[in-house]
Structure formats: structure tokens, C-alpha cells
């Protein structure tokens, strides 16, 4: 039961983007189009799951006072290994996800979950937390990206959804559009939460 609860809490209740407000930088940068958002989300989910498992596995040999530098070393080493392995053995995947790898290293969701969850829980629950948070991140990125891509480019996943006469609202895919979209979505989430 607790596995399932840890898994689903990342979707809405503790959504990393809208509720915990972590990982804002990659959210702003990669939500310009839905395929970018999915790429970033998937890459981050993968790293998050693996780093959560590893951090949880070594938590008994990690001295409490230096846990943060150890997390940073583990995550950075891990991300670099993934980057190099992907470039060498699955170049097609690396071509589409490769540009997100440097963004994952600085993605505070990964470190945030290591500190807040994986360092205190067992491997199984940390796995669930990694999957849930990763998918929650992917989900919220996709929502922001859907709004921005449709308004700013008239397309969704590169397919045209708006009529050709629609004049795209360029601001939506530029940086200010990300802040505006995110603001409205967070306001909406809070409104729903307060009504309950």
C-alpha cells in the first residue's frame, strides 16, 4: 500500500513543479514544445529513479554530516556515465535527449528527492518515489508545454492543431510566456486545492 502511495503522490498532491516548486529552470527552458518536454521528463525520470535507488542503497554507509557532497558526487558521476554510455551505444536516443543531460545535473528535483526522501527511506519506496516524482515532473512539463506550443506555434507535438489563419502568440514560446503560463497554472492548482 505504501509503495502505491509513494508512487502516486508525485502526480498531483506533491507535484514537483506546481506544489514543491522544484526544477524551475529546466521547466522554463524545455517547455517550449511538447516533444522537448517529454524528452526532458523522460531523461529526468530515468536519472531520478536510478539516483534514488543508489542513494537509498548507500544511506547506511553515508555519514550524516557529509551526505550532501556525497549525493552530489553520486548524482554527477551517474549522470556523466549515462551521458557517455548513451552517446556511445544509443546515438539516436542521445541525439534527442542529449541536450537535456547537462540540465539534469543541475536539476534540483534530483538532489531534492535524494535529500528529502531517498536518504531516509528504503530502496523499494525510493524507487516508487523516483518513478512518481519523475512522471509528475513529465506530466507538469507536458501541460505547460501543451499550452505554450499551441498558443505560440499553433502545433501540438509538431502536428498543426490551429487553423492556418491563426496568428501565433509568439510571447508564449519565449521566456516570459513560460512565467505567465506557470503562474496561471499554479494559481489554478491552488484554487482547486483551497476549494476542497
Amino acid at each position: 500500500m505504501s509503495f502505491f502511495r509513494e508512487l502516486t503522490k508525485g502526480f498531483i498532491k506533491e507535484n514537483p513543479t506546481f506544489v514543491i516548486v522544484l526544477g524551475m529552470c529546466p521547466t522554463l527552458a524545455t517547455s517550449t514544445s511538447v516533444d522537448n518536454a517529454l524528452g526532458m521528463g523522460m531523461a529526468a525520470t530515468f536519472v531520478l529513479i536510478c539516483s534514488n535507488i543508489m542513494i537509498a542503497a548507500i544511506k547506511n554507509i553515508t555519514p550524516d554530516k557529509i551526505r550532501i557532497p556525497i549525493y552530489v558526487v553520486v548524482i554527477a558521476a551517474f549522470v556523466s556515465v549515462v551521458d557517455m554510455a548513451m552517446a556511445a551505444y544509443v546515438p539516436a536516443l542521445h541525439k534527442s535527449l542529449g541536450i537535456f543531460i547537462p540540465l539534469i545535473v543541475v536539476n534540483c528535483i534530483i538532489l531534492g528527492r535524494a535529500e528529502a526522501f531517498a536518504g531516509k527511506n528504503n530502496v523499494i519506496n525510493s524507487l516508487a518515489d523516483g518513478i512518481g516524482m519523475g512522471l509528475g515532473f513529465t506530466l507538469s512539463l507536458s501541460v505547460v508545454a501543451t499550452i505554450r506550443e499551441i498558443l505560440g506555434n499553433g502545433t501540438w507535438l509538431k502536428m498543426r492543431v490551429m487553423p492556418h489563419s491563426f496568428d501565433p502568440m509568439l510571447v508564449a514560446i519565449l521566456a516570459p510566456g513560460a512565467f505567465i503560463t506557470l503562474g496561471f497554472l499554479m494559481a489554478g492548482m491552488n484554487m482547486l486545492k483551497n476549494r476542497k
Partner: protein
Amino acid sequence: MKYYIQLALTLLIFCAVGSGVLAYVNAKTKPIITERKIKEAKEARESLIPGSDFERHTAVADTEFEYYVALKKGTKDAQGYVFTAIRKGYAAPVKTMVGLDKDLKIISIKVIEQNETPGLGTNSALPAFTDQFKGKTDAELIVDKDGGLPGKSIKALSGATITTRAVTYSIKDDINILRADLASATGGVK
């Protein structure tokens, strides 16, 4: 005191293991990655000027500038040049691979690396944009917004003038470096 030494040693062990793993993976993957990059660049050159062998040259005056002379397969006649032009666009450097004929007229170009704004600057990689470079000489490489005449200039992408300028003028400048190098006695085609 003993406690702090223990902490430092623990951290050292973690870092050492981490570096060891990284060094191992790097040693394993680096040759494969380098090899593929070379292969990809070769394929890109061949798509610009098909049916050629390529010979690498470095410009004499500017050793940072590399270009390839395309030699027709069999006869070994020089039939053109290929180089990669790089200039900072709106976000990050835009890399464009350019194929020129013997008279330094553009055969075709290919934007091989860019990280511009999706939906605006990224359109620079599409044929609708790159096709207008075909047959242009360096004198015609001017963005229409900078006073170029229609038909004799590059039409700027809407909302991405900076990207258009980066692509256009990086090519123009590099053609001039190439021309100067070919004219100098040591450079040029053997």
C-alpha cells in the same frame, strides 16, 4: 579530531570510486564516440557534394579554419569545397555545414547544430530556409533586413533575425577566409 578525519576519508573514498567509474566508462566509450562523430561529419560532407573524396586542409593565415576540398571520385578533379561555419545565434552557437562549387558559389547548406528558440530560430534547419542559399555567391549573402535586394539576399526568418544573421554572415565571412587562403601561394588545391 578522529571523527573529522574519518569524514574526510569517507568522502575521499566516494570521490575516488566515482572518478574510477567515470574514467573506466570514458575510456570504453570515447573511441566509439569519436569514431561516430567522424563518420557523421563524413556523411554530411558527402550529402552536400556527392560522389567526392574529401581532403582536409587548414587555412594558412588562420589555423583555426579548416576546410575540405572535394575531389571527384576517379578523376580526382577538384570540384568544390566544404567547411563548417560557426557563429553565436540567439541562444548558442549555430553550426552550418556549407558546400561550395569551384567558383565558391553555394551548392547547398545544412544547419547541423543549433539550439535556437523552438518554432522561431529552429526553423533555420528547415529546407524552406536553407534552400534559398543555393546558388548564392558571397556578395549575395546579405539579410534582406540589412538592405539586401529581393532575390539577391537572404529572407530573414520571422521572429529570428538574429539566427538568420548568424547563419548568413558566418558563411559569408568564411567564404572570404577560404578565398584568401586559396589565393595565397601555399594554400589552394594541389
